[in-house]
């Protein structure tokens, strides 16, 4: 009986006061020595502060709730993914706004009649020149192809094996690279200056 009363009293008092008074009261009631303020008697309930802060009890509904949340998020993600990816804009096709400016228009020069005549005649002359050039090129290529055909014919008459070897494609020929002609010949032992540039091209990711 006394133990029960002491327990109840302990509970009441501990809510209001700190630990040392609790212990001194205990000492007074039980009459035996305790070793310090932190070693209470086994018979009394340990009503320390951490113990009183009851942790949340895990309810059974929580895992299901978390699962539901996760599923909802996944569904939202799928909806977003179903949207077709945004097309990367081709920047060459959109005229930048600064070129629509009117101040940039060059003064349209009025050509005199002679000048426009000269231009028309020159263009016609050029087309004639290009036509003869094209014809000459076609002829030259035709002759070359004919020469090759004759060569293959003669080779066939000679030996079938060599003919077959000649017809085989050369795998080492391609990729074929050749530096084309420039305006001035290359300078011997010329060191080109190193150029720096800042690359400001926009990179789009889908």
């Amino acid at each position, binding site marked *: 009986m006394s133990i029960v009363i002491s327990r109840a009293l302990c509970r009441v008092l501990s809510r209001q006061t700190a630990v040392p008074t609790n212990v001194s009261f205990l000492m007074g009631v039980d009459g035996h020595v305790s070793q310090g303020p932190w070693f209470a008697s086994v018979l009394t309930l340990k009503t320390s502060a951490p113990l009183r802060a009851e942790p949340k009890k895990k309810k059974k509904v929580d895992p299901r709730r978390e699962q539901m949340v996760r599923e909802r998020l996944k569904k939202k993600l799928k909806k977003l993914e179903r949207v077709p990816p945004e097309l990367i804009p081709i920047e060459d096709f959109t005229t930048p706004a600064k070129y629509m400016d009117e*101040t940039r228009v060059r003064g349209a020069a009025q050509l005199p009649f002679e000048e426009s005549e000269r231009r028309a005649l020159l263009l016609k002359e050029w087309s004639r020149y290009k036509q003869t050039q094209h014809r000459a090129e076609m002829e*030259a290529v035709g002759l070359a192809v004919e020469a090759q055909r004759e060569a293959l014919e003669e080779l066939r008459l000679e030996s079938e*094996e060599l003919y077959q070897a*000649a017809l085989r*494609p050369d795998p080492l020929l391609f990729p*074929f690279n050749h530096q084309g002609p420039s305006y001035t010949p290359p300078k011997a032992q010329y060191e080109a200056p190193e150029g720096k540039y800042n690359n400001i091209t926009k990179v789009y990711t889908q």
Partner: protein
Amino acid sequence: MAAPCSRMASRPLWQFITNVRRTGLKHTGVRQISLGSACRAATQTRSKTESVASPWKLYGAVCLQRLPVISQERNPIEDQFAELMHQMELERSLLSDHEQRLLEDSERMTRKQADNYDSDEEEADYGGQETITAQDQEDTWEQKLKHFQPALRDRDVGGTPLGSVERCLGDSLVLLVQQTVGKETIWLLPQAQWEAGETLRQTAERGLSSLPEADFKATFLGNTPCGVYRYTFPKEVRTERCVGAKVFFFKAFLSAGSATSQKEPFLWVKKTELQGYLKPAYLEKVDRFILNL
């Protein structure tokens, strides 16, 4: 010849070539398929008998071309047209940033020199900074350009020897060598006699590499010969077994290398100059596949 030509050509040219190829080599193409299917042994025996019985000696020759290093001089009409195009493009264009800057700077200069010049108003816009005018920038750029001396285009004024690869940088040159054929030493494209067990292309490569005192690095354009020259030996040399010779030409582009000594056995000639060195019948066949394009 066929494969790289088609790669370099424009669309109508490509169609032309395929047309010619289709009509010319159509039957050979069909026969090739039928040969490849079953009767290889028969063809091998046939080829063996053919090679034994063939009365023609085979040679592989190489037509080594040095492609042009600089662009050709323009014709008068090309010059005029280029100028016209430039002028027309300029007229149809908008002002560039640089040109606008020039205009603005010139306007500002006129405003400065005007009587009612309000310097506070002007400098308020620019925060009192010293601006480099576009004209100044142009001048600095021109100065920089003057410091650079490009190599001269026309080096032939000094008269480079015919054996040098550096002559006529604007045209494609062909290599000629002097070889003894029969009793004479004549100028011709470097050739070598075919030996059994090698393809004709290998013969041509051997012919090129066996040239004395020179190492030319060449890229051969495919396994197909581009031309053939057939000639019969004079009656004294003719026997039952060899009536004459067939020379098969292969095209190659010079990639690197040069003659180690400046001796005369080599000649680099343009297409127009070939006439002075090659025999007429030979020239007739060779002229066809040497393109001046």
